[in-house]
């Protein structure tokens, strides 16, 4: 039962091996039940203390760094909203050259990790991310996706899903929440010829941890797209954060898969999918949705499932089965 904890950057078999040491301290002012911290805690454990974190503007940044307090136990920098990729590029380049010149220890691995939100990644930070991925900097870029601009109070982003209410896609006489289909960031990352890209989800900590380990061990940029439920913005009880995250996987809304040097693999097969209705009904942001809208959302998910099944060459995500 008492399995030995692993060292940073080594894979684990069960969640019992996750190291105890916390590299992000409590006392931060994130909302109750914030998904970001379940993710960041474990990814930092996987990376270990020899890690520099770049954190563009967003919830994570604001709630961890109000002077004179910081929650970070690793070196951490925030510069602006739209330049996480560029700042990380500079950090990585500087580490490289200073190690070469002997200013920093030559044989000590220093990880560079970006934690950015969906605004800072899929929208305003998109160009800077693209540059970083394309130039091949050895950086792990983690997108903490809570599907809207939560830091400024729930405005839609390019990652807001079909149907979702936000303050800028309100439910009115003409608009009924978001009506477009979100960007596919994994495919965008893959189009940059990165060696490794994967989706992660805090309800699946071992999968999440091991993908981070893989990403860290890549000799080049890697991209992790983390699903991060937001009780405040999605309008659900904070105790349901992990439940919502799990339902996202069980409905096929969030497919856990990876792209590893040209090979796609679904890491969490779902043989019988739950209908998306079950995911929708526990979140206030979808409360207004009509049957037609829910049907449309189900179609979007079905298309995505088909796309992923095609990528992996077999049916690993199965059909919807009503319970």
């Amino acid at each position, binding site marked *: 039962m*008492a399995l030995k904890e692993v060292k940073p950057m080594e894979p684990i078999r069960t969640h019992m091996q996750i190291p105890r040491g916390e590299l992000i301290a409590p006392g931060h002012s994130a909302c109750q*039940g914030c998904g970001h911290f379940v993710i960041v805690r474990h990814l930092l454990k996987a990376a270990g203390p020899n890690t520099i974190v770049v954190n563009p503007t967003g919830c994570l940044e604001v709630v961890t*760094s109000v002077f004179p307090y910081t929650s970070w136990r690793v070196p951490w920098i925030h510069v602006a909203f739209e330049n996480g990729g560029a700042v990380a590029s500079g950090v990585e380049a500087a580490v490289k050259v200073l190690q070469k010149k002997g200013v920093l220890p030559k044989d000590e691995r220093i990880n560079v990790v970006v934690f950015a939100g969906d605004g800072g990644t899929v929208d305003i930070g998109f160009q800077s991310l693209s540059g970083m991925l394309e130039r091949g900097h050895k950086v792990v870029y983690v997108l903490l996706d809570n599907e809207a601009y939560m830091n400024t109070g729930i405005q839609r982003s390019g990652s807001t899903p079909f149907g979702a209410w936000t303050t800028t896609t309100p439910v009115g006489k003409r608009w009924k929440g978001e009506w477009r289909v979100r960007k596919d960031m994994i495919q965008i990352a893959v189009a940059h010829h990165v060696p490794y890209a994967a989706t992660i989800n805090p309800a699946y900590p071992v999968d999440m941890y091991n993908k981070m380990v893989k990403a860290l061990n890549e000799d080049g940029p890697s991209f992790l797209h983390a699903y991060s439920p937001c009780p405040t913005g999605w309008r659900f009880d904070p105790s349901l954060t992990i439940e919502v995250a799990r339902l996202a996987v069980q409905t096929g809304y969030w497919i856990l898969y990876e792209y590893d040097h040209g090979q796609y693999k679904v890491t969490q097969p779902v043989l019988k999918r739950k209908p998306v209705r079950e995911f929708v009904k526990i979140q206030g942001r979808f409360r207004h949705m009509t049957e037609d809208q829910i049907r449309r959302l189900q179609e979007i998910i079905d298309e995505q499932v088909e796309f992923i099944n095609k990528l992996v060459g077999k049916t690993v995500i199965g059909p919807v089965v009503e319970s």
Partner: protein
Amino acid sequence: MSSKLPGWKELPEGAIISDPGNSEVISTGEWRVFKPVIVDEKCTRCRLCWIYCPDDAILEIDDPNAKLGKRYDVDYEHCKGCGICWRECPVNAIEWVPEER
């Protein structure tokens, strides 16, 4: 209001904080309306409450006298009372009780 705060000469250049993780001195326990209470007898040491806590507020304590050599407790200084641990506990070993102050 700010008479006790340090003046510009005393503050670090560039607002750079050199005391890593010092936010742990901030108590977020008062955010709670309900609080989790771990019932040790029921606890199977599955560790999921510790895994899923966003606030490092589940303490995993080595204790040779405890079942399997360790036990779990709540850091009430930092627990914000989100209830994830209570909701996720597979054996209902966490009670969810109204906060009394």
